[in-house]
């Protein structure tokens, strides 16, 4: 069995304010008729520590992981050092930015990006 690896962000992608590693959260992106649903895995992040910004055509998701290591702990085996999450996505005209919705549960961020009117399939009737 391969040891699981948490994907680390590359230096250029994120302005690092600390020494902690930045991880790129795994996502599922699902398209439905109404829009896109993005499910991002952010284990260890609670609702109050997620930040979502949409600016200049870029949607950024950041999650801060509060250290959950007990004070006098000795690490015995570590697969991934504690670190925060960050990932960015391009947002095109097809997303209605005003109507984005987000919720967080069990370390998974669920983001719904509704399709803008422009992107919705418009049926043209032939008279």
């Amino acid at each position: 069995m391969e040891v699981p690896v948490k994907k680390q962000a590359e230096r250029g992608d994120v302005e690092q304010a600390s020494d902690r590693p930045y991880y790129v959260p795994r996502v599922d992106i699902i398209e439905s008729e109404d829009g896109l649903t993005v499910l991002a895995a952010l284990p260890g992040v609670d609702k109050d520590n997620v930040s979502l910004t949409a600016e200049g055509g870029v949607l950024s998701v950041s999650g801060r992981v509060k250290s959950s290591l007990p004070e006098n702990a000795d690490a015995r085996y570590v697969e991934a050092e504690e670190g925060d999450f960050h990932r960015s996505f391009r947002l095109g005209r097809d997303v209605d930015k005003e109507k984005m919705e987000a919720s967080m549960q069990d370390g998974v961020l669920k983001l719904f990006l509704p399709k803008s009117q422009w992107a919705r399939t418009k049926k043209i009737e032939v008279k």
Partner: protein
Amino acid sequence: MALLPRKKDESRSFGLPGLRSEINRLFDSFFEGRELPTLFGERGFAPVMDMVETPQEIQIRAEIPGMDAKSLDISVSGDTLTLKGEKKSEREEKDENYYVMERSYGSFSRSVALPSYADREKISADCKDGVLTIHVGKKEEARGKTIQVDVK
């Protein structure tokens, strides 16, 4: 259990300064080779885990975002603690189209060897924000200290 070196993410420069386009990321996950994402069906996976020790207890942590903690199976046999679970896909066949499916689904089983001073009678677990923490108490004589092992 050895401490394994962190695998360095292979960087591929596409000449884009700073922010890489999302399309590049999509291609990366197809060509990375380590795991080929499948659009249908399950693939094996294992949650990221770690083990730390305090004077009072041993803590084993596993990242299981989006998994129902109640569906987990934690058992001890001898000095081996095994964590089993299954992450069911939330996929509903009908009107959905997965553009990207990086999250893992399927069943997993991971075992860790507990030290001899672990107290099998004192195991509990809790889960918060997708992180499962298994608390393993230490036998009376070992509590209050972390055992140092001399290398001769």
